[in-house]
């Protein structure tokens, strides 16, 4: 564990972080440990975000740094060393709702956190969620919505997954503007996440990483 690297990245010092990663690679450091440190730094960033010390632009910036590190390090890691994706997450904004900002941040943060993310866009019909769940076989389904009418679309989407025998073994989280735990109960999802950090934490809890 390289505290200096973790601190640089957690403090969002992009240039210094990238320089250090280059040096570490040049000096023969195991790329897997670099990625592990980057992940630890992201956890620090997530905590600072939860404590209102960091804000959305900071979160995005951290994501971009992680993306940069991954790009540099990935080609040097063999699949066997665990460079594969940690799990599959299907993301989409439910039928009737066209909001994409929160969903896009969640997709980005899950992607840079090492999950294989399939984002199927906005105003996604119930049948499309069912079809994509069948094809992509995600461990986690993330339903996004901002409008009140999204509640019923979420409910219908989850009911359709039950009817199609795809609900068992699938974890479903919801998020967006007016969602809360009451809505979660109503739509019968497994969890409500209030922001992108919560989404990443839920995936960690459910499928590891």
């Amino acid at each position, binding site marked *: 564990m390289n505290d200096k690297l973790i601190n640089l990245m957690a403090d969002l010092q992009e240039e210094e972080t990238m320089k250090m990663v280059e040096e570490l690679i040049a000096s023969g450091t195991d790329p897997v440990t670099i990625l592990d440190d980057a992940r630890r730094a992201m956890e620090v960033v997530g905590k600072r975000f939860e404590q209102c010390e960091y804000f959305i*632009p900071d979160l995005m910036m951290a994501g971009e740094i992680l993306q940069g590190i991954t790009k540099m390090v990935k080609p040097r890691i063999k699949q066997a060393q665990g460079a594969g994706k940690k799990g599959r997450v299907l993301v989409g904004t439910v039928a009737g709702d*066209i909001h994409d900002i929160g969903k896009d941040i969640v997709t980005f943060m899950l992607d840079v956190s090492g999950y294989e993310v399939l984002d199927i866009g906005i105003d996604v019909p119930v049948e499309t969620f069912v079809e994509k769940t069948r094809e992509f076989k995600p461990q986690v389904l993330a339903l996004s919505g901002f409008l*009140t009418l999204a509640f019923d679309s979420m409910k219908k989407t989850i009911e359709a997954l039950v009817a199609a025998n795809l609900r068992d073994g699938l974890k479903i989280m919801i998020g967006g503007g007016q969602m809360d735990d009451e809505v979660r109960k109503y739509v019968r999802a497994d969890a409500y996440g209030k922001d992108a950090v919560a989404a990443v934490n839920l995936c960690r809890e459910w499928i590891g990483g």
Partner: protein
Amino acid sequence: MKTIVRGPRGKEVVIGDGLPTVLLGERINPFGKGPVKEAMTTGNMEPIRAEAARQVEAGADVLLVSVSAFGIDEVRVLPLVMEAVMDVVDVPLCIESRNPEALDAALRLGCGKPIVSSVTGEGPVLAALLPLVKEHGTALVALASDASGIPKDPAGRVEVIRRILEQTDATGIPREEILVDCVAEASAVNDKAAGVTLDTMERVRAEWGLNLVLGASNVSFGLPDRMTVNAAFLALAIKAGLTAAIVNPTTMLPYAMAADLLVGRDPRSRRFTTYHRKRKAKEREQTGQP
């Protein structure tokens, strides 16, 4: 172009070029937690009355009323909340709903001449709302968004507005009843967002000369010190032609007035200096100093 709206007992508010920016108090909504939200679920309207009076006292010209949230029956609750507001203040209302049944019930209360907010470019929304707006002779917010979302660039947003105007024209709703919302989005997520909004506003103003309204608090979502960001944005938006702003009047009134003064909408600075003197007098009264 002048949009004239009225409160239940006749109080008139004029929205237009060269006039002070009209402030729409945003606080009567079901978002977040607190007494206002609670009132909407319990039916005890006292917090609504208090919030309505507070906002008007703080300088709101119009009050926004929105009850659209999970677990709230809009058709029943919207008229209740509006009645509570009208009990205590005579200002025009901006009714935020896309539920035609709820809107119809609300408009039958006789609340003067309100603003209905909002239609998008989506066919079903236009078909449901425009006849009500026409029938009740209200003003209307037109939002630059359609079935595929909010266009990313000014040209796309202008096109959505053009399509909405075709429909309002066809329904016989006069252009002066339309307030265009060019959509303010979070700058925390996209640092070009405010620029797109402001460009769109300038284009809409140049092409049609319509009144412009914005939910000005959206820009600071995800950022610290939101009030500072909101105030800076409000000034830019007023320069770009904003004539009505959906804000928290308690914090935004001085900034709106200062921006109005700077763009020449406050002749001889009468409004701003009067506000200052009143505030000072109030302070003296409170501290008991001469």
